[in-house]
């Protein structure tokens, strides 16, 4: 069985909100009608979004880290939001595990949003139906798009490739490997919702430069024993160009 999902690398996310705007753009222009905004240019703008990027500060100054945290529906494998829906408007697709809302059936009772511990559902205050991330279901199967574009809009937009998309039930997929090899984890595991989306943790990133890397220890010319000029590290390396 397929379970499509996103894997979000918190080590790479720079909090640029490109996924937010690209998601909004794609999903507000689609068949299902707009994702309504109210007062977009006024003092208290508000509106419906599928995806939000939040920012947290971890640690005590000066030893702090900024964590940018994109948050959208996690397409839980045990979605508590689905069985509570009285109309059947909320459902999980068998074929690919995407959790969707049928906007034509939803009565806007908001009960499903109460049943989602992640606050991933937002009601559209104009259409009065519940909305949430669709994993761009209207995009990923669209054969009129080039294969490389059949990915969620947020994934395509991310400038740092912090967002991976794929089948987490296929052990050989990019996302499964990332989860396996980079310590992927789920949000609020205590509720047993089994989110399909995973997050990759922050890692310590250090840039280490060794001397011999600068002087090219692997230079094949060295094998011939010819001495190479070894400019000091402070000297310009491109004559004539950087010698000012």
């Amino acid at each position: 069985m397929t379970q499509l999902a996103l894997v979000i690398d918190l080590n790479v996310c720079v909090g640029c909100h490109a996924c937010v705007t690209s998601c909004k753009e794609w999903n507000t222009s689609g068949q299902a009608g707009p994702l309504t905004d109210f007062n977009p240019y006024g003092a208290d703008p508000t509106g419906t979004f599928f995806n939000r990027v939040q920012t947290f500060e971890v640690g005590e100054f000066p030893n702090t880290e900024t964590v940018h945290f994109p948050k959208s529906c996690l397409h839980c494998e045990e979605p508590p939001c689905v069985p509570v829906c009285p109309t059947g408007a909320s459902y999980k697709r068998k074929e690919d595990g995407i959790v969707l809302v049928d906007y034509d059936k939803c009565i806007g009772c908001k009960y499903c949003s109460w049943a989602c511990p992640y606050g991933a559902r937002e009601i559209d205050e104009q259409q009065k139906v519940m909305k949430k991330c669709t994993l761009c279901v209207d995009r990923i199967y669209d054969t009129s798009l080039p294969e490389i574009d059949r990915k969620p809009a947020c994934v395509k937009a991310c400038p740092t490739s912090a967002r991976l998309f794929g089948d987490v039930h296929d052990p050989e997929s990019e996302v499964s490997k990332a989860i396996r090899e980079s310590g992927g984890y789920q949000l609020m595991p205590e509720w047993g919702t089994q989110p399909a989306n995973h997050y990759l943790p922050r890692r310590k990133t250090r840039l280490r430069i060794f001397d011999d890397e600068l002087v090219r220890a692997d230079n094949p010319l060295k094998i011939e024993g010819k001495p190479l000029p070894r400019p000091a590290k402070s000297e310009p390396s491109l004559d004539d160009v950087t010698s000012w």
Partner: protein
Amino acid sequence: MHPAFSVIFLTTLIGVGQGLFLALFTVESYAAFGLLPAQDGRFYALGSAIALGFLVAGLVASFFHLGRPERAWRSAAKWRTSWLSREVIVLPAFMAAVFLYGAAHFTGFNPVLARLPSGAPVNITAILGVAGTALAFALFVCTGMIYACLRFLQEWHTPLTVINYILLGGASGFVMAAALSAQAAPEVAGFLGGWAMILTVLALVGRTAALVRNARLKPKSSLRTAIGVKHPRIVQKSQGAMGGSFNTREFFHGRAAGFVRQVKWIFPVLAFVVPLGLLVAGFAVAAFAVQYLGLLAERWFFFAQANHPQNLYYRAVS
């Protein structure tokens, strides 16, 4: 959670209707066994009409909760999994039972269908009454389970939620019945007033138990599990929107902590203590009015106290 007035009125109003019906049928059952003086059919018909009035008012209130009320009929679809769907089915069924029960008494069409071994007659209203009683309890369970089944809302996720819906609804219905009988059937007023007091005391005990339980709750989720960073100090710096969102409106009560604390002390006084005093003094109508106000406050607090784990993601604007 944000206390929505539609739901506050829905749950309190149908609670009165259910309790009142249970009170009526209790009187009829006692009378059938000769434990209470038999009442005129008009008393039951009037009581059923009032109960039905409360139920209809509750139903009307519930429509204000829906974004798309014109599609409300769809909500009967998923009764296999959804308590809300079950409530949507049981409520009209119960209203039908109350209507038929009242109509049978009003028209006097009440033939004896069978006899118990003891010789007590089983007539149509008895059968409708038993069906209505079962439906009234089913409705209490549905209403309570809508809240109790949400395991993330730890304040609600307890059998006490269902028990309290039964006790609070029952108490208010019996107080209403006591007020009604004081005018329409003085012979049973003492009986109903007594039960109204007993149920009010039981409701006080049940609700206090829930308050004590909730005061000792430890939230299962924390910011650590919410974003998966295991550090004791995490502070939110932005929530992705500056002007608020559905998440900041639907899941917060929007009042100061002091206000909530005040309601916590006021509602038990209004819903239980004062009505008890008024019942003892014999002012059943006033007791009902005060108790209903108290129950509105109680329901407001019920919602306001529930702390949704999604709130962890919405602690700071920027």
